[in-house]
Every structure is written in structure tokens, then in C-alpha cells.
């Protein structure tokens, strides 16, 4: 059975995130992924508040970046959250995008090694083991109240394979079925290399969606999100995008400055549509069918969702409920 969850970006006040999560729980989604970005509110502190006020939905922190938060501290924060809501905490770690990291003075070196090491440290500490890796020693002096699945946030082929090799799950950050199919095969390669079974991990399609009856509004809402994704794409995928070096530099510059008006001028609809699932809510049924057929066990409905978030979430849930009947009979 496919799991459906929703991404919330903690850029808005806590009262809104809290209310939206309440509505998401009310609608029957399984969980909420809180994105982690140095310019937004802390996903950990936001999660602590949400978990206290919800009773069923799980909260995923993702994607947490070990370049910006020390893996030992990540384990400490996650373990603390299990005390707020045992069995309702998940975490995803990833190497993030170069542009954002550079903007806060962090160098992104050897991302594969960094993620492998971070997962080892976090997993061992959450399992109450003592860490003795190179210069890192010690253990948590308190007991996590439940286990925490560790996902890997991935886009590039080697990170996708690493996710299949060591993750309890993989968050695959693509939105169109063609890219998702390719990414799934990379995850599968990692799984096979490690001698694991595909059923033993949760492979999640982390879609960026903007749905509305008015396609123009849906595109406008999606532009800043598409620009962020574009800046972080691995080289191989970037080549397929055919964006052009000059345009890419302009997009990166506008993202770095947070100049959204400039982005509306630079980004064209074709690029946005390659990166974000755009259209009427009903298109989701066909896309979901393709994604489930590829093999994904979770679908994350990622921000911005649409220009009218409440109405779109309700329509999406209706579409999922109707599609589920057709998908699983």
C-alpha cells in the first residue's frame, strides 16, 4: 500500500504550520515532512510543537544537512523528539545544494562520504551505541523512546545508490515519472549491491507540485520552488534540462538574493514544468498511477501544493481516495 504524506516548508509562522498539519491529519494523510533550510524556521523546533498537538500523523525532518548540523547533534535532537511522540518521528539526511550552502559559508566537500558517515553516527547513537569514529567519541546519555527510520535525500545517481545501500528509506526529489523511473533504478542498484530486498526500505517520490484550475496561477506559485530545485540539480540531470549556462547563472544569482520578481522574468514555463508537477488536481490520478507502478512505496506531495492550498489539499485527498480504489483492486 502506498503511503501519502505532505511537505510543509517552515517559512510561515508556527500558528499556520500547526493549523495546516491539523487539517492534513484531519484529511487522513499519513505524515508531514518538514523541510529544513537555514533561512527558514528550524524543522526540529517546529516538529516538537506539531508532534505535541497531533495524535496520529508522523513528522519527518527532511532533509537535514550534516554540513550545517553536526550528526551527533542531529541524533540528540531526533532522540529528544521521540520523547515527545514515540514512533512518530522520521528523519532524512542529505548533502543539500551547493548554492544554499555557499550562501552561509559552508563548503560542500565529499558529499557521499559525509552522508555515509552521518548515517552511521546517527544510527549508532539512536541505537544507544557508543561512537568511536576517527575524532568522534561518545554516546547519548538518555534513551530514545522509539526507533527512528533514517532516509537519504537524493538526486544524483551515486547518492540514490547510497540511499538504497544504507537508508531505511530514500527521498527521491523528482516530479516527473521519467526521472522518477530512472532514479528508482539507481536506488534498486544500491539495494541489490548491498544484498537487501526492495521491500525492506521505503522509497518515496518527493514531488514538487503546484495544482490549480488556473494553470497560470499554478505556474506563478511554482516558480521560486522550481528555481531552488534547478540550482541544486546534479550535472547529469542539468544537461537534460537544456537551460543554458547564462540563464543558470542569472537564476542562481536571483535565488541567492531572494529576488522573486527577477525570477518571474527569468524562469520560463517549460523549465518550470520539467521540475514541478503542474496542472489541475485531477492530473494527479494519472501521475500517481505511473509512480506507484514504478514501485514507489510513498508519495510526498511537496510544496508549494498550489496557489489555494486548502482547496487543493482537499481535492488531492479526494483524488487519492478515488484512485486508491482503482490502483489496488
Amino acid at each position, binding site marked *: 500500500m502506498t503511503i501519502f504524506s505532505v511537505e510543509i516548508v517552515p517559512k*510561515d*509562522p*508556527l*500558528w*499556520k504550520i*500547526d*493549523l*495546516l498539519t*491539523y487539517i492534513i491529519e484531519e484529511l487522513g494523510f499519513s505524515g508531514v515532512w518538514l523541510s529544513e533550510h537555514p533561512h527558514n524556521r528550524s524543522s526540529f523546533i517546529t516538529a516538537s510543537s506539531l508532534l505535541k498537538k497531533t495524535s496520529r500523523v508522523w513528522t519527518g525532518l527532511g532533509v537535514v544537512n550534516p554540513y550545517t548540523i553536526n550528526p551527533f547533534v542531529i541524533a540528540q535532537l531526533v532522540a529528544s523528539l521521540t520523547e515527545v511522540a514515540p514512533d512518530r518521528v522520521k528523519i532524512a539526511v542529505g548533502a543539500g545544494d551547493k548554492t544554499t550552502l555557499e550562501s552561509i559559508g559552508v563548503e560542500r566537500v565529499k558529499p557521499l562520504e559525509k552522508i555515509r558517515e552521518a548515517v552511521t553516527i546517527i544510527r549508532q547513537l539512536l541505537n544507544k551505541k557508543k561512537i568511536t569514529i576517527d575524532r568522534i567519541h561518545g554516546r547519548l546519555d538518555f534513551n530514545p523512546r522509539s526507533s527512528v527510520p533514517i532516509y537519504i535525500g537524493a538526486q544524483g545517481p551515486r547518492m540514490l545508490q547510497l540511499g538504497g545501500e544504507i537508508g531505511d528509506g530514500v527521498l527521491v526529489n523528482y516530479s516527473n515519472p521519467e526521472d522518477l523511473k530512472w532514479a528508482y533504478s539507481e536506488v534498486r542498484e544500491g539495494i541489490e549491491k548491498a544484498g537487501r530486498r526492495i521491500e525492506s526500505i521505503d522509497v518515496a517520490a518527493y514531488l514538487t507540485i503546484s495544482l490549480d484550475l488556473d494553470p497560470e496561477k499554478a505556474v506563478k506559485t511554482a516558480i521560486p520552488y522550481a528555481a531552488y530545485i534547478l540550482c541544486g540539480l546534479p550535472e547529469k540531470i542539468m544537461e537534460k534540462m537544456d537551460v543554458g549556462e547564462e540563464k543558470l547563472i542569472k537564476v542562481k544569482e536571483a535565488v541567492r538574493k531572494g529576488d522573486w520578481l527577477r525570477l518571474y522574468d527569468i524562469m520560463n514555463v517549460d523549465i518550470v514544468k520539467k521540475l514541478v508537477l503542474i496542472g489541475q488536481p485531477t492530473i494527479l490520478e494519472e501521475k500517481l498511477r505511473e509512480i506507484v507502478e514504478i514501485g514507489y512505496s510513498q508519495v510526498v506531495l511537496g510544496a508549494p501544493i*498550489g*496557489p*489555494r*492550498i*486548502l*482547496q487543493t489539499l482537499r481535492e488531492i485527498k479526494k483524488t487519492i481516495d478515488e484512485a486508491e480504489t482503482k490502483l489496488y483492486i
Partner: protein
Amino acid sequence: MDVARFMEAVRELAVEEKHSLMEELLDILLSSVNLEMVPDDVGWRVNQAYRDGKLIEDEFLRDLAYAVSIAEPAKFRRIVERL
């Protein structure tokens, strides 16, 4: 001023109309990118009233209208004119 006019117009509406107006306002508020402008205490009152099923009550509908008038003044004005 717009909020006062809105509340006056709302009093004339049937319960179903009031409910759909409340839903419309809430959708505008939750979709807004200007929520840093809304005072936190107003936001939390809207949040709690929705959870308690009381957002349709005048006291809380006024809070919702006020929040929307701050975050999305043009959209709010259009709604008031429509009423």
C-alpha cells in the same frame, strides 16, 4: 474599516453562505506569503477557533477577517465589495 463593513454584511448571510465565506477566507489566509505581517496572537486565535469548530462565530470570524485584511488586503477588499 473594511473588517467592520465585512462583519455587518456577514450578519445578513445564511449559515451555509457564512460557512463557505469562512472557508474562502481561511484558504486565502493559509495560502498567503505575507503571514509575517499577521500578529501571532491573532493567528493562534484563528488556529484554535478552527480546531474548536468555532471559526464561524462572529468573534472569531472577525479575527479571521482581520488577519486576511492584513495579509491580503486587495483580495479582502474584493470580497467586501462582493458582499
